[in-house]
């Protein structure tokens, strides 16, 4: 995974490059939480363009980071999700609280 902070817009950009399961989530969580507490971003953006697999561990990880961003008065967004990942996120109802942007979708 790659984490970048864009100071100008106060954006924390997290590009996830691994398959998101219970094993991977521990490291992702640690690194993202580190970035959030260090930079206090206005918004955290998860870029899922390289995510080829996600199970329910991803739901818990996303909700946890969403809560953290809310706590510091910021927001969370997920961009470039595949249809498979979207199906899982919609099943959990996450899409009702977190904006999901699939690349192919024109909103």
């Amino acid at each position, binding site marked *: 995974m790659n984490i970048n902070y864009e100071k100008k817009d106060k954006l924390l950009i997290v590009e996830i490059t691994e*398959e998101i*399961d*219970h*094993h991977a*989530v*521990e490291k992702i*969580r640690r690194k993202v939480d580190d970035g959030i507490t260090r930079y206090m971003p206005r918004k955290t953006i998860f870029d899922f363009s390289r995510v080829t*697999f996600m*199970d*329910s*561990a991803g*739901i*818990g*990880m996303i*909700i*946890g980071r969403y809560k953290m961003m809310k706590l510091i008065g910021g927001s969370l967004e997920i961009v470039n999700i595949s249809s*498979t990942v979207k199906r*899982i996120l919609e*099943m*959990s109802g996450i899409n009702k609280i977190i904006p999901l942007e699939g690349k192919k979708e024109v909103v």
Partner: protein
Amino acid sequence: MYDNEMRLEFLSKSSNEAFARITVAAFAAQLDPTIEELADIKTAVSEAVTNSIIHGYENMEGIIKIKGRIIKNTVELEISDTGKGIENVELARKPLYTTKANLERSGMGFTIMESFMDEVEIDSVLGLGTKVIMRKKIKKHIEDLDEILSVGGVC
């Protein structure tokens, strides 16, 4: 009789979650599933194996077994642990139900297994362990239809 069968046994380490779903996907691939059907199977296996690791064995070392079978167009998977078992299976199946909310679990594991597979049976005895049996029928593809049509002399 089964058309094919395989068995897998591994330690309850989280690094084996990927190993398990990839291995099962390779076994199921002989039914020529679509990418989506394969993704469904991988996700369901990942859910069941993760449950054995974090709920069954509660991160202590144990053995997880997977039996895979192919019966005509159906893959049947039996994923079992000898961990602590489920107190109330009916409750455990409910969406959002989790006994480990403190670990950021979402309680969506069984819901995902049920929606991605055709059938999910849970067999669990408190103190003895849990067995999850899942089945998914792989649909026939266009290529197969072509074959059937050409054999029938329709072309």
